[in-house]
């Protein structure tokens, strides 16, 4: 029997209403984090009335919604590119070579935090951080070891480096040179995306304006000298990981891209001279269809943006991207679940048409990956490529009423934000005013509230908990040994080099930085070739530019709003009120980040939520030393210090903090607790150092707050 369309729809509507027991399906939608409404049903009508998404177009055709290339994976699958690095160059090199043998296709280097922030491994300031969260690279010598036995003319290398981008890229170029290769043949990507560092990633060194000059100098140099090298990887990844929703991630990333295009144009380059070498980097979280649609929307909008910049080369118009599955979606609890999460996310990235992909390991929320966990992560992609058939068809979800509509919805929501940023005068101005950072922090805080209140389910964390958590092996890095090795290498380097020549190069860098003359990458190559260190070149630039200190305060009231009239929330508030009555003031907690660890999402969320609950919160700046923290804590007579540690510096930094506290006041009654990524293997060590409580990933704020007020009350 044939029915007409509207009759069928109304029949469906009736059935639906009956099944879910509501008046109309219109009331039945799911609102995403982005504020987009997801309906229970999409039909052909949902394909109409679009502004951005033209569903008629084909892959490799303007505006490239369906893919930058016509053939996509049918010709060549995406590149399996796993981000890795730890300890010394020797150790990381061994690890890379094994991975390449096992099917990995491209390299992606993770540097340690001292390198990111422009400090050499022998710098006192970074004692706890050397080799911990990435590989320590101090000079060309280290860089050569890192790629020993890996031909840089054949292997494309991606480097996540932004702050100390000049000496590190320079060292890479010289390492290639000393492998006997002209820089013209080097292929790969340097992240070189400084704007998002100020927003969310926090490995900046210099203030925003001179930092933008470094970006432009690199784009200029590579456009002329390194035709196969991507001069920048414009990254939304870190924004989503810091808490941005997908629309924010997309909008701020594209707006960053526009800013970089302008910076390059200001160097006198023509748009098609450099735009083909701009690449992108997005995160792929658990919202399956949203992520697919995001990648399609990204390509659509970038084509439009670049056309407005006057680009005509097709390579300038197409957005090519690397993707990484979301680390923040992975849990410390019941960690094998993470393999499943990562698989879905990887599928999402592939259906969205990514050019390369990193899949996270299941021990993500515990420590750097082990050989075992890395293998599973890599194989997740290899199975997808070789066993599932997803590579046989280009953009297989095109024409899906839902995915097409979602693509359009994301485009228009992101475009609104981009227009706001433009009104601000572009991303540099918006970033300086703290606008994107604040809106991302607001989203992050909402997310935490949704999870803590159970509105959003995380399996194994706030529902379906595993009563018997498995024990898993973790990668342990002997940070003192790494530091010793690095110091030895630096000492030899400094003996063997000609310091006079080097000093000349370094002072030329400072001069050129001051006078806004010359190309700073070209000058850095000279200095690194003369065996300067990452720290020395960074210092030469700092002498001209100064160092940047962030001063952002954060949101307020966002967490509390979710818990109006919540019993647990009010119970804690009452405890705090009682404490105030008995003690003459509110419980006061100093929340700190020590060392070079720039993960501030957790610390900020805890700070704002604790304040909503009624605590007085002192918020330390990033990169404090244990000594500074102790002084701050004593002077403000806080009841407790909450150390937020995610980059594995706690084994050095926490004992130092205790020492410093006792040095100022050996009778102090300050309670110290620790939050963040702490492997279970470290718990006893911390307790032995007088840490009162440890709150790992996934701890509900209400749980930690209750424990903290209990501990403080007990002591006072």
């Amino acid at each position: 029997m044939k029915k007409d369309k509207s009759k069928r729809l109304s029949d469906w509507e009736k059935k639906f209403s009956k099944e879910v027991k509501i008046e109309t399906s219109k009331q039945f939608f799911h609102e995403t984090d982005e504020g987009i409404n997801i309906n229970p049903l999409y039909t052909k009508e949902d394909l109409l009335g679009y502004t951005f998404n033209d569903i008629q177009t084909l892959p490799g055709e303007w505006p490239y919604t369906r893919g930058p290339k016509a053939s996509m994976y049918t010709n060549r699958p995406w590149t399996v590119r796993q981000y890795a690095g730890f300890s010394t160059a020797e150790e990381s090199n061994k690890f890379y070579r094994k991975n390449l043998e096992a099917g990995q296709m491209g390299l992606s280097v993770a540097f340690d935090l001292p390198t990111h922030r422009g400090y050499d491994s022998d710098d006192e300031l970074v004692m706890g951080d050397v080799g911990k969260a990435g590989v320590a690279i101090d000079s060309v010598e280290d860089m050569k070891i890192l790629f020993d036995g890996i031909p840089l003319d054949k292997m494309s290398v991606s480097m996540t480096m932004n702050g100390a981008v000049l000496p590190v890229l320079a060292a890479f170029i010289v390492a290639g040179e000393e492998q006997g290769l002209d820089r013209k043949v080097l292929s790969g990507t340097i992240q070189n995306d400084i704007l998002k560092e100020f927003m969310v990633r926090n490995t900046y060194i210099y203030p925003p304006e001179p930092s933008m000059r470094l970006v432009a100098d690199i784009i200029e140099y590579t456009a002329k000298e390194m035709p196969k090298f991507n001069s920048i990887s414009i990254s939304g990844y870190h924004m989503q990981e810091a808490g941005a929703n997908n629309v924010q991630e997309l909008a701020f990333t594209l707006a960053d891209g526009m800013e970089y295009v302008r910076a390059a144009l200001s160097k006198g380059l023509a748009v098609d001279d450099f735009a083909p070498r701009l690449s992108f980097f997005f995160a792929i979280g658990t919202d399956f269809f949203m992520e697919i649609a995001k990648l399609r929307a990204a390509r659509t909008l970038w084509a439009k943006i670049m056309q407005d910049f006057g680009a005509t080369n097709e390579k300038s118009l197409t957005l090519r991207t690397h993707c990484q599955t979301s680390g923040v979606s992975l849990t410390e609890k019941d960690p094998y679940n993470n393999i499943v999460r990562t698989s879905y996310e990887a599928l999402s990235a592939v259906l969205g048409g990514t050019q390369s992909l990193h899949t996270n390991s299941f021990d993500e929320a515990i420590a750097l990956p082990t050989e075992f966990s890395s293998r599973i992560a890599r194989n997740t992609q290899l199975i997808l490529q070789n066993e599932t058939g997803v590579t046989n068809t280009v953009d297989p979800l095109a024409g899906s009423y839902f995915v097409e509509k979602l693509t359009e919805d994301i485009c228009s929501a992101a475009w609104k934000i981009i227009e706001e940023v433009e009104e601000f005068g572009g991303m540099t101005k918006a970033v300086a005013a703290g606008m994107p950072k604040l809106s991302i922090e607001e989203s992050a805080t909402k997310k935490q509230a949704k999870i803590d209140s159970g509105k959003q389910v995380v399996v194994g964390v706030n529902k379906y908990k595993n009563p018997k958590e498995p024990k898993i092996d973790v990668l342990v890095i002997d940070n003192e040994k790494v530091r010793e090795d690095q110091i030895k290498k630096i000492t030899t380097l400094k003996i063997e080099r000609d310091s006079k020549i080097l000093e000349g190069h370094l002072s030329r860098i400072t001069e050129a930085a001051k006078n806004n003359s010359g190309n700073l990458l070209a000058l850095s190559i000279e200095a690194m070739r003369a065996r300067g260190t990452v720290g020395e070149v960074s210092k030469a630039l700092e002498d001209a530019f100064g160092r940047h200190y962030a001063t952002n305060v954060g949101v307020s009231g966002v967490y509390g709003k979710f818990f109006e009239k919540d019993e647990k929330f009010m119970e804690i508030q009452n405890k705090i009120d009682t404490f105030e009555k008995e003690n003459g003031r509110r419980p006061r907690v100093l929340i700190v980040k020590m060392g070079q660890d720039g993960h501030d999402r957790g610390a900020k969320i805890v700070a704002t939520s604790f304040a909503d609950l009624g605590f007085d919160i002192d918020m330390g700046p990033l990169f404090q030393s244990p000594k500074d923290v102790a002084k701050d804590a004593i002077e403000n007579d806080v009841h407790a210090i909450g150390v937020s540690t995610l980059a594995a510096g706690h084994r050095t930094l926490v004992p130092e903090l205790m020492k410093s506290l006792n040095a100022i006041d050996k009778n102090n009654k300050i309670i110290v607790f620790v939050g963040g990524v702490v492997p279970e293997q470290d718990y006893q060590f911390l307790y032995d150092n007088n840490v009162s409580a440890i709150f790992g990933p996934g701890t509900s704020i209400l749980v930690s707050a209750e424990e903290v007020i209990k501990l403080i009350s007990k002591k006072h």
Partner: protein
Amino acid sequence: MINLRDRIIAGERAAIAKAITLVESSREEDINHSHELISALIKSPGHAIRVGFSGPPGVGKSTFIESFGSHIVNKNFKLGVLAIDPSSNFTGGSILGDKTRMSEISKNENTFIRSTPSRGSLGGIAVGTREAAIILDAAGYDYIFIETVGVGQSEITAANLVDIFTLIVGPGSGDELQGIKKGITEYADIFIVNKNDGDLASQASRTASDYKSALSFYNKDNNELETQVVLVSSIENKGMDEVLNSFNKIVEFNKSNNRFESRRENQLAYWLEEEVRNKILLQLSKENGIPGLIENEVQRIISGETGFYSASKTIIDTFLGKK
């Protein structure tokens, strides 16, 4: 208490901190202890110059203190900072953010930096700020900076705490000039125009000259020092020497003609009166029978049994024991 006093005078960091907690506390026994302590400390005053910084939110008070503070500390002065943080939250908690902008001076051995949540107390300062300054003075600090909450109208209380009262303003729209009424110039010894850098530089210097000419209208009588106007950039550390010179000028001038001391004496009178007023109010709200009487009188006014003014008189007379 004596022990605490000695430790403060010896400059012991933890003792100073505990003492400030004591003077800020709302607990009855703490209040009594703090009175004892302050009375003891007042007997051995130091030599600190107390400087107040007021100005609208976000104008750069904390950033200025970071920059100017570094300048002072580099000249080997000891600096205490009392930052009254406005960021009180709807549930009563707060995030104290001023200090995140003072990370350089915080590290220095010769500083003591304390943040206090304002808790809505009036006048841009907090309960205990005056006493905290006394503690830092006794502990031997050369300068004590007080960052007030930028509240605009109620600078008088803050001004009565300090030897130099500073108003920080931004590259202005000119609207702020409306604020330079006769009243404020009486309290402000110096105007600092901040953010004289980058895109804002030209606007900042225009603002400074606007202030100068506006101030010349309201100038004080002949034997008073004219209100200083200094142009600075806190992020580029520009103008800090000029500020220090102006401070020195103000102090020297005031000391040379006895204004310095007489100002402190007037402030003492102000605070004594404040203290008495507050105590009476507190007593009034606690005195046996008074709160009930007030309620009762309100009802009697409403029902027409008595009038507003006679009700007031009845209450006061009862309170003072005349009835």
